[in-house]
């Protein structure tokens, strides 16, 4: 089990390289001005380096320059890239008088290892240095950008997950215990709508109803998007009184938070309550539940202690799978509501070709995914003593 986790780890490292290369080539292609500009842009995005070297610099931040041991410099002349390629047969004259004939496509302006020392160096994504943002916040560290967005996403995902758990579990249990009752049928119907309803459509409908129409009708309305308002605003309360909301205040935050949270929660409740219902139904049919009932354990205890605890086991996978959705799980909801979280950052980054940011987010997601696997494996052995780590 652990071995497979490690193999994931090794496997997923590979796509960063070619992906990075592609994206950066395209990035460089966007500005085509003069040969000088091209060389400068290439150097900026390290496009002049050979792919393995570029990947290593992105991934672990090495090589940083020529190797110096005890005042002696080694490998300073190593060619690690090419700044300009020959378009025709070119004669290259070195300072020491050597003359070399370069074929078309060959290199006439090699980048040596020593030159890398003057470049901007990162510590490598493996050690948490995501490099610099190229577009969104020009030349600011990506880490800073992510840090500024992280709290929004954490609050949104955290609260909605908590609410989902609190609501979905009772609904799931009750639907399973009273299968085919009116309650179960209503819950099933709602869950059906919840799983079919695309989050973006649901989000816009909410905006139209609560932000547009409620405002027109003079009802207490909700702000349509963003995390805070720019100006103070007044919310009427059924003609009785009015609330003056200061921009940036706590209430302001809460009011902006309600709708995105509602969308996320509703959609996940639909999925999770179904999941709990089916796994409870499975468990309730088991012999040990019948035994427990036969020996006279109270129904409430049978359900909560004997059945529910066992129904939770498959649920663990689901809970552990939330972790990787932290980055992009709410991407659509965040875009609809203009919520400044990580998901919207990803969309922005892709829209504006800021690939260092996008790759950093992808990398974080993959790490979280692995951590999620690990956690769910550990929780499994805790919850189900029959499973042993081998």
């Amino acid at each position: 089990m652990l071995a497979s986790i490690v193999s994931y780890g090794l496997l997923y490292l590979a796509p960063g390289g070619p992906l990075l290369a592609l994206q950066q080539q395209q990035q460089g292609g966007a500005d085509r001005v003069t040969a000088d500009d091209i060389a400068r842009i290439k150097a900026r995005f390290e496009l002049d380096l050979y792919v393995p070297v570029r990947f290593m610099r992105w991934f672990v931040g090495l090589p940083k320059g020529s190797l110096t041991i005890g005042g002696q410099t080694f490998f300073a002349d190593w060619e690690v890239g090419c700044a300009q390629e020959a378009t025709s047969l070119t004669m290259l004259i070195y300072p020491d008088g050597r003359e070399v004939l370069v074929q078309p496509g060959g290199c006439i302006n090699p980048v040596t290892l020593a030159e890398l020392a003057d470049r901007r160096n990162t510590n490598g994504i493996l050690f948490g240095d995501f490099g610099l943002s190229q577009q969104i916040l020009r030349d600011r560290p990506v880490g800073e950008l992510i840090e500024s967005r992280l709290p929004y996403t954490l609050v949104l995902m955290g609260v909605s997950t908590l609410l989902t758990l609190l609501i979905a579990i009772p609904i799931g249990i009750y639907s399973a215990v009273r299968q085919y009752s009116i309650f179960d049928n209503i819950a099933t119907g709602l869950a059906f709508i919840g799983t079919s309803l695309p989050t973006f459509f649901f989000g816009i409908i909410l905006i139209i109803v609560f932000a547009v129409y409620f405002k027109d009708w003079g009802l207490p309305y909700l702000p349509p998007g963003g995390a805070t308002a720019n100006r103070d605003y007044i919310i009427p309360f059924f003609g009785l009184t009015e609330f003056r909301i200061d921009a940036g205040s706590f209430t302001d935050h809460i009011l902006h938070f309600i709708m995105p949270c509602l969308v996320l929660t509703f959609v996940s409740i639909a999925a999770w309550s179904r999941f709990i219902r089916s796994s409870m139904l499975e468990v309730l049919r088991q012999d040990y539940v019948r035994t427990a009932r036969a020996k006279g354990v109270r129904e409430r205890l049978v359900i909560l202690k004997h059945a529910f605890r066992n129904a939770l086991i498959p649920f663990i996978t689901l809970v552990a799978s939330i972790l990787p959705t932290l980055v992009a799980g709410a991407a659509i909801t965040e875009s609809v509501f203009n919520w400044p979280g990580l998901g919207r950052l990803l969309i922005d980054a892709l829209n504006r070709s800021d690939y260092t940011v996008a790759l950093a987010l992808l990398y974080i997601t993959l790490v979280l995914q692995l951590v999620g696997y690990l956690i769910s494996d550990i929780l499994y052995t805790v919850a189900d003593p029959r499973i042993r780590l081998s």
Partner: protein
Amino acid sequence: MAAITPKSVALENKPVRSESQWETVLRRFARHRMAMISLFILVIIFGLSIFAPIITPFPRDQIDQSRRFFQPLTINPETGEMHWFGTDHLGRDYYTRLLYAARVSLTVAVTSTLLSTLIGLTLGMLAGYFGGWVDMIISRTLEFVATFPLLVILLILVAVLLDNENLIPIPGFVLNIIMAITSVDRIDNARVIAVVILTIALLFWTGTARLMRGMVLSVREQPFIESSRALGGSNLRIMTRHVFPNAFPPIIVDFTLGLNGILVLESSLSFLGFGIQDPIPTWGNMLNFAQSYAFQHPWMTLVAGLPILLTSLAINYVGDGLRDALDPKMKI
């Protein structure tokens, strides 16, 4: 052996109507009221989109500044033409565009689902049937692909692939077919659609493969497989004639769920502004534009969003009906 074949003399006079497995499934499916209604709705939606060029009253991209933002059921005062679902921000007829959008969205959804089911079926079958190193390779690939968060990697891949058009060469005849089906008039637009279809299919097959592998693993150990092998059946024959039909029913349900998933996925993609772009209408990018005018013209979102919801609900109900119909333990 032929000598001991019993002849059912007694039954010859009053034949017992025996029904095949699929007749049973159909009969059970027909009892599921919501599923039947949904199937009907789906047939209508598919029919409308197929006959879009014939039944739409306006050209798809006809821009007319004099008729912007007509509400649904507006009659154009100048021409007396009816705009059933209104017009958009450029004065294009919404009803016309919705039908053409259905063509694109449904083509993407159906083709991607077919492709990914095909990939998943084949790989799952191979992994389950042969086991050993075949299973090892396929399972590791599957885990590797499944590690990527779908939406994130899809957004990135589509963005990259669309910027580098020649990265995946797509044969011209495929593009021509896509152009014909989706009534897209330019070949580079067809390429965009092809890229979206391919990317989704290449990321979506893991669920099907996993399901198929599990089914094949359980079917493989059954006595009838052993007898077929004893009778000298080749691997190919056993797989196609014995394993496949027995592992197939859950795949049908999986197909409908996948169809719905991909439909919503593609809509999200174009809603976020990636993938297929205006002027090619898809339900997703129409909704994207509608959102910009949500404050002044709220009806636009409803008109653009309801088809997605309706189709998605209908597919889900059909899937539900199929699941019940295919499950022999379920009483209907």
